[in-house]
């Protein structure tokens, strides 16, 4: 098996994963609509927070919280990708893939490629919607592109966790039941408020949440202000998460195959 051939396999699986996502209305709701709904609620309900003394000096509250929406999108892209994998296992489609002469790791990476593609589309969509509603991003186009990359890597990282759970359990119901935990991860990171305004407990938790560094990096990039977040720290956190969880998912697949 050569790399070019495996590349084609990954592309084919990624394309399939992405196209199916857009044909399932129940998956579009959490990945595209829900983050925007939460953005609208938070933007209209808590914008007074911008007047607090600890709140950083930013152009607009909407632009400040858009990185939270982008990371929420990445979380949900990862989770729905894991759920789709669990469905493949539960309904037998995964057997079709296992019966093909491809590297087992390509099956995991192909799924992750779909997650990456989904995240790119989500992030572009969220940024455009935010622009339409008046958000301004002083970081410019370069910052937007870097944000898309960061969000994509983060989605792959979160998709790796979901894929590992799917491969370990093969249970769609379990993946669906962990949906609320997405919000635990999101709200233990400074997604919608600066770290300084979090309660001490949340602030301590945020230190250990890799999403903290990603969301702050995106905020710093879009605002063109590295004081809000270091892009390189964010990239390191996202890459670390992606590599670790993809390895975890690959390990879960190997375990699954050994137990057959």
């Amino acid at each position, binding site marked *: *098996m050569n790399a070019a*051939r495996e590349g*084609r*396999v990954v*592309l*084919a*699986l990624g*394309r*399939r994963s992405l*196209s*199916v996502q857009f*044909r*399932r209305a129940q998956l579009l709701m959490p990945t595209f609509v829900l983050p925007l709904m939460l953005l609208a609620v938070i933007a209209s309900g808590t914008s007074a927070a911008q007047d607090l003394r600890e709140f950083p000096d930013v152009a607009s509250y909407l632009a400040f919280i858009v990185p939270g929406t982008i990371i929420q999108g990445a979380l949900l892209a990862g989770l729905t990708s894991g759920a789709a994998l669990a469905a*493949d296992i539960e*309904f*037998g*489609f995964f*057997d*079709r*893939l*296992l*019966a*093909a*002469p*491809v590297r087992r790791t390509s099956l995991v990476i192909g799924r992750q490629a779909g997650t990456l593609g989904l995240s790119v589309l989500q992030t572009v969509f969220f940024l455009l919607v935010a622009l339409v509603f008046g958000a301004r991003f002083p970081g410019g186009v370069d910052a937007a592109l870097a944000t898309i990359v960061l969000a994509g890597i983060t989605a792959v990282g979160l998709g790796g966790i979901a894929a590992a759970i799917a491969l370990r359990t093969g249970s769609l119901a379990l993946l669906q039941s962990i949906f609320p935990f997405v919000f635990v991860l999101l709200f233990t990171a400074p997604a919608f408020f600066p770290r300084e305004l979090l309660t001490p407990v949340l602030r301590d938790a945020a230190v250990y949440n890799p999403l903290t560094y990603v969301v702050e990096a995106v905020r710093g990039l879009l605002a063109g202000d590295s004081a809000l977040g270091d892009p390189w720290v964010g990239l390191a956190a996202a890459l670390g998460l992606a590599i670790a969880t993809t390895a975890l998912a690959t390990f879960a697949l190997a375990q699954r195959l050994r137990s*057959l």
Partner: protein
Amino acid sequence: MSVPQSSAPAVEVRELVREYKGGIRAVDGLDLDVAPGEIYGFLGPNGAGKTTLVRILTTLLRPTSGTARVAGHDVVAHADAVRRSIGVALQEAAIDPLMTGRELLRMQGALHGLRGSAAQERAVSLLERVGLTQAADRRVGGYSGGMRRRLDLALALVHRPNVLFLDEPTTGLDPTSRGALWREVRSLNDEGTTVFLTTQYLEEAEQLADRVGIIAAGRLVAEGTPDVLKARIGEPMLHVELAEADSAGRAREALGGLGKVEPADPGAPTRVVLRTAAGKGAIAPVIRALDEHGVVVESVEVETPTLDDVFAAVTGSHLEGAGAVEAAA
């Protein structure tokens, strides 16, 4: 059956055991050989171990002990080589309902190393072959059961496999769809593809298979061509109904040279039963012999052993699907 391609078995199974948690042995010491170019029908009721064996042979399940080789490759040690040689259509076609037939075929092509244009061309030719050209760009969720099975078969053929595994390919299909699938399987076999087919339909095994293996409780309890298996449990019987009971003695005497005459049944004084390997071919000689002895015949019926009789003889029970598919061929 087409001409065998080589002397090495397409499928070779030795003392194969697969034990599940709780000590349940789905496959229990199985030995099996399938020749290249053969259609092998694996017959058994639900839970007999058919699907477990197919999953082992297609590398989707590991055996607990024993060995299995497909197309000359060990299913555990050289699983990837096995996967390159086989096509698989599993029970309850696992096809993503949100994808179109064409998309699935192109994806399957990529999984088997076909490049974009080659995968596209192969998809077009296979869609035509299984009669799905018109439905190629419709989502599979809208396909009928028969269309799904045909697509599943096409997916299994993308890389022109040497050995094709079909796990209960016609379960749940209407007679027309079943007949169409049978014709396609025969056609593939004529082109040289070895077919390993599991079924719980006796007629499917009889119509398609060169040889039949009967599995019960994980063990191979009988194996052979359908004719050999049926002959093994007894010769066909001719039931001769006479016009008058008092001619029965003369009839027995007349038929003695044509086969084995069964003892008289006091409950049916006008009936004489003759066992003969000639089956239907014995009808004319029987009529002639009885006529020469002045015996008037009301009717003659031939009773041939069926695979269900064979199944009942070797397992002690009948298959649930027996006789369910008469109209299909």
